[in-house]
């Protein structure tokens, strides 16, 4: 059964994520050198880039789980999909927030209609749509299936949206400002990958513990839930 396994795994993921966060921050702030053109500000990318990568990837994972749930009618996949959505939305939010903070010293304004930022914003809208559709349907099975369909439609649309936004952007601005023109130094890469791994592990830990609650909620009428030690307390 998935529930106890997830319960055992959560602390491991949580602890290793915390360690990696600490290591990544140390590398990012004390080991990695100051960037020649962007000064200290570039250090935002250690949180910005992992957050935006994760927000996009989690959407695909979510749509994948949702599709599995829709096609094979496996309830666990649907529960995973709905557990993934809030985490993905938060990462999208962090990516937007840090992107704006990075943009202020770099471009002199908080918000630039840059292709990446705009796509990220639309991604956040898609997450919010998924969450609110799921929340407004009372019947859990219909909620799972309807939002799964939405997630799939969204994931098909994401490339089209990205392409169109990018195209629109080049049309209006001529050239976009690149994040890092020069190749990154090795220590920067190390810091980046450590932070990325930390975010990954964090996402896994949070999603697993959220899905545990969802399982309990959905299966509260079954016998095995009644026999769980933490319930019997």
């Amino acid at each position: 059964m998935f529930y106890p396994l997830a319960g055992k795994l959560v602390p491991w993921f949580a602890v290793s994520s915390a360690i990696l966060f600490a290591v990544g921050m140390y590398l990012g702030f004390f080991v990695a050198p100051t960037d020649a053109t962007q000064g200290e500000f570039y250090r935002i990318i250690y949180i910005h880039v992992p957050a935006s990568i994760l927000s996009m990837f989690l959407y695909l994972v979510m749509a994948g789980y949702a599709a599995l749930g829709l096609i094979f009618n496996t309830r666990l996949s649907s529960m995973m999909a709905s557990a993934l959505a809030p985490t993905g939305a938060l990462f999208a939010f962090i990516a937007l927030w840090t992107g704006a903070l990075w943009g202020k010293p770099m471009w002199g304004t908080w918000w630039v209609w840059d292709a990446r930022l705009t796509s990220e914003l639309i991604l956040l809208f898609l997450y919010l749509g998924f969450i609110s559709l799921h929340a407004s349907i009372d019947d859990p099975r219909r909620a799972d299936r309807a939002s799964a369909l939405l997630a799939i439609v969204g994931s098909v649309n994401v490339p089209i949206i990205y392409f169109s936004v990018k195209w629109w952007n080049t049309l209006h601005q001529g050239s976009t400002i690149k994040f890092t023109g020069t190749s990154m130094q090795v220590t920067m890469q190390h810091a980046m990958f450590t932070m990325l791994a930390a975010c990954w592990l964090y996402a896994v830990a949070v999603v697993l513990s959220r899905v545990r609650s969802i399982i309990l909620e959905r299966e509260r009428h079954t016998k095995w839930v009644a026999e769980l030690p933490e319930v019997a307390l």
Partner: protein
Amino acid sequence: MNKILWLFFVVVRRDLILAMRRRADVLTTLIFFVMVVSLFPLGVGPEPEMLRKMAPGVLWVSALLASMLSLGRLFSADHLDGTLEQMLLAPQPLSVVVLGKMVAHWMVSGLPLVLMTPVLGLQFDMPLEAVGVLMLSLLLGTPVLSMIGAIGAALTLGLRGGGVLLSLLVLPLCIPVLIFGTGAVGAATSGMGFSSHLSLLGALLVLAVAFTPWVAAQALRISME
């Protein structure tokens, strides 16, 4: 094949007759469109230069909002009186019925907007050529809005607060249509070729015709449980 076409036309004709009997609904959408478009100059000021630049965006966004407004009724009226259940039992694929309803919805709520465009374009002092391109882009783009919107309408069928939720779900998905639609007009006014924009819009339309009826049919089956 013939039976499929026949069912398609039956559904289109049915929805058109119903729309004719309820003209007020159709008119409100159109009036909403005209009003929103007319509000923009009041909001940003009457400088012709700026208005001319803004016109395609304003008209497109208003068309998007107007089509959201009418989408709520696409399935819900039939859901409430039980006729939708009968359509689920049609002996031909449900996507045919859905496509029929999409087409009828567009003819009732999209086409009038396209026809209204020249008048509104004059309000914004748009050059004649740009108005033509705008009409063309709306002609290609509004069916896509109806089709994507139908998926949202099917998903939110019978939910409380369905109308707002519908916009929340559908608007992000409509962004590419908006971009290519306004892009075409922008390109035309700045003297560049606009055919690439229009062909991209056309490609979106083809994609939408190919996939959205099926997706919306699945959504309906989910929502009707």
